């Protein structure tokens, strides 16, 4: 019978059978050289062929044909240089004969063919076409063979590849075994107690940490070319170009640690750790790394360097510790906050405090009615949420709240946010009120420029004049670079005492959420805590500042904008991507919403207000204040500076292999940017938002090569992802949607929160470039398109001759989640 036949067949599969589906026709399979497994060239139920699936998932790159295949046992490699990376290989034909060779795209096929050459490099065609090997190189198995093969899904492929990383003997059958496929326990809305809380969130944090570690440690980059320099502090700085950054997965930040290694022949093996002081920006793609150690640096060498990421577990350790403290230490939070955080029902509590007469804080702008309401209701509540939609004065409101909390309560107020930028902004505003503010930064960031360096703890220690001996040692250390062992010991203890004194005398201590786990802060107790951007922090991250004794906590954020970034998909799916703020909202704590926005031209706030804030967003700014009369730009409706510019160009895979780029949109983007600049808009006030890295780099390049104005002007235009613009504003925003594909989704753009952020960055005008036919299939975008159409702002044609577009929208699919 059929079942029995099938199992025998599977048992008897030859060695060269596809490790996914079992197909084993010699002409249809290839061997992965890296792992010696065989895979076929059929797609089965997936979007790429099995061999391509494997190469991509396993990050393998070399293959060999079967001895009995038409071409015989052949390792595919560049005829010229021997490169075996199949993602780079392709055929070129001879000019006048039916002869072909395999050449790598870069550099061999990049040499233009000269007249006397036999080969036509312009005819180069990739080996991999449409996620499949060219079918005449590796045959597609017949339909019959495919039907009889094991039907494996892309999900199973993924899991199998994951299994192989731990156990190279694993088979498809192992996927069925218990434990292999266990999804982690998802987060809950309510928890019995803090132990259950720790037991559920702890493993998720561990998963994220493991993933982060694996990712960072796999990011070694070889063949780095270094340019040497010496900083003002006499430390060596290595400048280099870091190709991995282009890929988007690894986000390098100023302050991150990297290890630089030399393995060439001109110097003995050498390595040193340093921290990043400059990341690629519009001006240059170089990374600058300031080295910690200064001896024997091979500054005479430039080639053969490697760079590794130095993974640090600090932030994850602090989250775990915070959750443990929450569970075991009864004084970590007040009883009321304990139960509220766990989702228990408790009687509302009012704190007995003397309310201030004025709610605005000294030297800060007067508060509007909804801001006053927010400040007022927060001061007497032990736990509150403030929702600050775009441009509603979140920072001023937070600073005013902190001012009153500091005046009303004993002890210091702890002020945190997940990002350093947000902490700096808030620290500066609070400082303006006259409060004594200390900004605590991570040690690795002490040397970095900061707008609030005068508030930082290390700077205040340096500038303190009460301790003469400490000053002498600081001076000595600066001059000599290092101190004798006994002096160093003395210096450390004096410094610690000085830090303690400064912290104790402060009214407010500002640091990142993770920074609140720094022993210098974590040793102290904070009755009052305010967390800004709380919707961008993961829940365990938020716990770090909360468990230092909080009795009153204020979380500020906006759950209609982007949430925390969780890299591990399993952990994210299990709910680690939900912020504490969001969970508390679901539990029924109503956030107090700031309702007056001061950023956008009223026509720009209308759609986000209706779609994301139940129409409650009011405009604190008039049309007149947001119209630039002398700016010559072809808005379809002059007093409504917004337009949806229909671009029907296809999305495509660029020559460098980057998918999702759209040349039509890039070209129109350049025209619009140029037009804005000709009209007198500063390049620094124009932002280009695009969801795909491929399009980002293409637009940057395109503007450099094709822009009709001075090249350096285009360099000042910020082109970045939606996520990079969160929390910021520009005068004009151009949104390039890119996706224009009949079959696939619109990717990142389908997240309503991302769309909200994209639409709410501009003060004076928004231009959206996209394909309405495709975008309108998505209900949210359908609404947006109808809105633009009703306003008369949906246009097509040439930029200097725009017409109202008559394009028909598609019928939207039912749900957009």
């Amino acid at each position: 019978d059929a079942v029995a036949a099938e199992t025998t067949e599977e048992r008897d599969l030859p060695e060269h059978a596809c490790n996914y589906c079992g197909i084993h026709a010699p002409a249809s399979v290839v061997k992965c050289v890296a792992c010696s497994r065989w895979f076929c060239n059929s797609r089965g139920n997936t979007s790429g062929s099995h061999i391509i699936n494997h190469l991509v998932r396993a990050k393998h790159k070399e293959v060999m044909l079967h001895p009995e295949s038409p071409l015989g046992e052949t390792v595919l490699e560049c005829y010229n240089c021997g490169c075996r990376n199949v993602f780079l290989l392709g055929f070129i034909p001879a000019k006048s004969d039916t002869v072909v060779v395999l050449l790598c795209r870069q550099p061999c096929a990049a040499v233009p063919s000269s007249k006397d050459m036999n080969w036509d490099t312009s005819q180069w065609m990739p080996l991999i076409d449409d996620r499949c090997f060219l079918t005449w190189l590796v045959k597609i198995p017949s339909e019959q063979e495919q039907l009889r093969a094991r039907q494996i899904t892309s999900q199973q492929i993924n899991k199998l590849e994951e299994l192989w990383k731990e156990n190279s003997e694993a088979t498809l059958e192992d996927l069925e075994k218990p434990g292999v496929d266990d999804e982690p326990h998802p987060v809950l809305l309510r928890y019995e107690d803090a132990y259950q809380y720790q037991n559920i969130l702890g493993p998720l944090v561990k998963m994220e940490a493991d993933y982060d570690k694996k990712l960072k440690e796999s990011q070694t980059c070889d063949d780095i070319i270094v340019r040497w320099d010496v900083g003002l502090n006499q430390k060596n700085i290595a400048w280099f170009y870091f190709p991995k950054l282009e890929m988007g997965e690894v986000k390098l930040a100023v302050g991150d640690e990297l290890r630089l290694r030399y393995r060439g022949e001109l110097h003995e093996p050498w390595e040193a750790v340093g921290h990043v002081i400059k990341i690629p920006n519009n001006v240059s793609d170089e990374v600058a790394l300031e080295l910690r150690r200064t001896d024997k640096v091979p500054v005479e060498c430039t080639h053969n360097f490697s760079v590794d990421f130095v993974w640090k577990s600090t932030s994850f350790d602090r989250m775990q510790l915070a959750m443990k403290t929450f569970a075991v230490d009864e004084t970590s939070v007040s009883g009321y906050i304990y139960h509220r955080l766990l989702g228990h029902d408790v009687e509302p509590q009012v704190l007995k405090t003397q309310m201030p007469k004025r709610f605005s804080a000294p030297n800060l702008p007067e508060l509007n009615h909804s801001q006053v309401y927010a400040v007022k209701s927060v001061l007497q509540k032990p736990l509150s949420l403030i929702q600050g939609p775009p441009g509603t004065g979140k920072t001023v409101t937070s600073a005013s709240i902190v001012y009153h909390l500091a005046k009303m309560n004993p002890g210091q107020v702890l002020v945190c946010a997940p990002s350093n930028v947000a902490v700096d902004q808030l620290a500066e505003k609070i400082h303006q009120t006259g409060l004594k503010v200390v900004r605590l930064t991570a040690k690795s960031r002490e040397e970095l420029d900061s707008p609030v360096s005068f508030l930082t703890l290390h700077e205040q220690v340096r500038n303190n004049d009460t301790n003469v001996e400490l000053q002498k040692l600081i001076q000595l250390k600066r001059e000599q670079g290092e101190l004798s062992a006994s002096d160093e010991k003395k210096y450390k203890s004096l410094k610690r005492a000085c830090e303690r004194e400064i912290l104790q005398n402060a009214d407010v201590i500002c640091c990142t959420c993770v920074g609140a786990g720094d022993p210098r802060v974590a040793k102290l107790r904070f009755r009052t805590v305010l967390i800004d951007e709380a919707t961008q922090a993961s829940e365990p991250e938020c716990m770090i500042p909360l468990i230092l004794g909080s009795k009153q906590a204020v979380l500020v954020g906006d759950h209609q904008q982007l949430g925390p970034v969780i890299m591990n998909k399993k952990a994210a799916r299990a709910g680690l991507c939900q912020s504490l703020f969001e969970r508390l909202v679901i539990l029924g704590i109503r956030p107090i919403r700031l309702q007056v926005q001061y950023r956008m031209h009223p026509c720009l706030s209308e759609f986000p207000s209706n779609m994301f804030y139940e129409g409650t967003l009011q405009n604190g700014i008039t049309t007149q204040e947001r119209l630039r009369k002398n700016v010559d730009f072809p808005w379809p409706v002059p007093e409504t500076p917004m337009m949806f510019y229909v671009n029907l160009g296809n999305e495509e895979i660029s020559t460098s292999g980057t998918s999702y780029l759209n040349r039509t949109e890039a070209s129109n983007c350049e025209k619009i940017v140029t037009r804005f600049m000709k009209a007198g808009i500063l390049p620094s006030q124009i932002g280009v938002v695009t969801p795909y890295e491929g399009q980002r780099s293409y637009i940057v390049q395109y503007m450099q090569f094709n822009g009709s104005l001075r090249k350096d002007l285009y360099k000042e235009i910020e082109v970045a992802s939606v996520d990079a613009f969160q929390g910021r504003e520009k005068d004009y925003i151009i949104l390039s949607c890119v996706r224009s594909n009949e079959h696939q989704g619109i990717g990142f753009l389908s997240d309503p929160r991302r769309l909200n952020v994209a639409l709410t960055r501009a003060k004076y005008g928004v231009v959206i470039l996209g394909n309405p036919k495709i975008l309108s299939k998505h209900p949210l975008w359908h609404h947006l398109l109808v809105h633009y159409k009703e306003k008369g702002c949906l246009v097509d044609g040439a930029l200097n001759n725009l017409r109202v577009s008559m394009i028909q929208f598609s019928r939207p699919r039912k749900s957009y989640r």
Partner: protein
Amino acid sequence: EEDVVVLKTKQDQVSKEEDDEFEREFSRMMNESMESRKFEKKSAVLDVPIPMNLRGAQDRRTATAQEKDNHQQDKMSFTLLTKKGNRQQTRTMEVPSDSILAVSTRTKQEAEREE
């Protein structure tokens, strides 16, 4: 035929998320590969001689191809040059006549014949 239908329904069920993710990983692989060659020294001009016995062979080949039976007519023969150590090897490769490679080669040949 019913089996084919089953296959298609399955295909529709392919998780969008998995596909999008594969798509991203694939692009990353491509990018990474290109980036890794960015600073590769300019290669020497491609100087691969075409073996004498293959020169001008196309006329012969196309002629014989036409004589071949039906199912071979939709194929065009090319020679793939490979290297084993320093030795040049040749392999015959059947390329579908409607592939870009075959079409553009035929166009070139026709143009040459007209000259």
